């Protein structure tokens, strides 16, 4: 038996030797983790706003995540893209688009401990800059940003939203940090079933989901990557395929152990629909469910 097992071991190791798989870098994983924290905070913030705790802002997002945004910068609205769909609309044409600092685009493959500390400090600085930019845009809106926010305020889902009839939070329009920059973002959080709410000592109402949830986020084009190539270039989540949403090619990503996402650019808007099924791991949200939600979005005409 031992000899047979040894032969099996040997064959298994030689089989593994034939793999050409490449392990992800720690830097990429840490970047993805930060993105996850941003989105989770966005969802939590939206939930709290709905129960009267107060609107969340990017300041909260940036600080709650520990190390904040990678970088912040401003890009002209006429940035190039390979998509066939129109990339601007009246609301976004003059509005601010915030994009990553080019210096962060090519992380070193094997960061030293000292470079990691420097990176962390740079990230904290960038987070503060992102928070300041968001604060300025919120407190001192220009005509253009007001127009952009007003257009986002109008974007909605039908009530009830197809497949996700329960409101988990009031829809919000707020500055959101996507890790690659901040942008005005419409966030809509819906669920299949009502959650279970408990009131903590501080008076904060915490709602635990009891089933599938979906978060739909809309921002002016450039806020986050939506094509497979751009998602890959940004070291975003694994692309598991493509589909069609609102008549446009959409990217399907697996953003987390219990999350999938559908990303698409339509009429100058970047749209992300994330399905979360962590509450019931065996009841996954499908890309088709998310496409139905994206297709149902109203008032995307700017």
């Amino acid at each position, binding site marked *: 038996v031992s000899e047979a*097992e040894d*032969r*099996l*071991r*040997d*064959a*298994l*190791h*030689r*089989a*593994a*030797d*034939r*793999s*050409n*798989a*490449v*392990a*992800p*870098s*720690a*830097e990429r*994983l*840490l970047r*993805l*983790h930060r993105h*996850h924290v941003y989105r989770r905070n966005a969802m939590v913030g939206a939930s709290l706003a709905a129960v009267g705790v107060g609107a969340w802002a990017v300041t909260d997002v940036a600080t709650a995540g*520990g*190390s904040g945004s990678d970088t912040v910068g401003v890009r002209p609205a006429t940035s190039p893209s390979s998509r066939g769909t129109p990339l601007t609309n009246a609301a976004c044409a003059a509005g601010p688009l915030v994009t990553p600092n080019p210096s962060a685009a090519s992380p070193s493959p*094997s*960061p030293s*401990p000292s470079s*990691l*500390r420097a990176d*962390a400090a740079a990230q904290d600085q960038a987070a503060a800059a992102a928070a300041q930019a968001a604060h300025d845009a919120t407190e001192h809106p220009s005509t253009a940003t007001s127009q952009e926010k007003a257009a986002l305020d109008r974007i909605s889902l039908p009530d009830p939203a197809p497949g996700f009839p329960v409101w988990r939070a009031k829809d919000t329009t707020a500055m959101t940090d996507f890790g690659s920059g901040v942008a005005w973002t419409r966030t809509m959080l819906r669920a299949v079933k009502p959650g279970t709410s408990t009131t903590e000592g501080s008076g904060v109402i915490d709602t635990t989901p009891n089933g599938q949830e979906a978060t739909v986020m809309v921002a002016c084009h450039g806020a986050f990557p939506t094509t497979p190539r751009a998602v890959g270039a940004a070291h975003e989540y*694994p*692309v*598991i*395929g*493509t*589909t069609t949403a609102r008549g446009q090619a959409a990217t*399907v990503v*697996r953003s*987390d*152990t219990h999350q999938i996402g559908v990303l698409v650019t339509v009429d100058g808007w970047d749209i992300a629909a994330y399905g979360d099924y962590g509450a019931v*791991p*065996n009841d*996954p949200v*499908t*890309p*088709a469910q998310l496409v139905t939600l994206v297709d149902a979005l109203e008032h995307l005409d700017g």
Partner: protein
Amino acid sequence: VNATDAEEFTAFVATRSPALLRTAFMLTGDDRAAEDLLQTALLATVRHWRRIRERESLEAFVRRVMVNERRSWFRRRQSGEVAVAEIVESMTPDFTGRSADADLVSRALLTLPHRQRATVVLRFFDDLSEAEVASILGCSVGTVKSQTSKALIKLRAALVNIDERCEL
């Protein structure tokens, strides 16, 4: 994740991810799926870094996530989720020299049910003890023994089948 955690995590990934990636490959039989599986497991690890580091072996945690996640993928596909880019079990046949054995075993491994496959990989590829495998799979040592026995019987039968088909 603060700077210290990031340093520790980076060191862990640098030293252990090559071995963990090989395990992921043996669980999935596909390069791309193995990369995705390891990434998912490592993201779960960084998310709970401090808690895991204090309570258990990091490697055991990563392996447990990979095994469970692999099972979830299978269930998702069974439940009708259409992964648009279907994972292709792309073991290219190769019947020259010593690689023939490896190829046959790889393909036979793909025929095993998820749990038995995980048992074989963890027990004979990662060389873990029965107790360690039981801990990762969340079952008793007795179950590991029985699963191993069943897996080896099926593996033997699959090897004969594949070998005969190749000779035809």
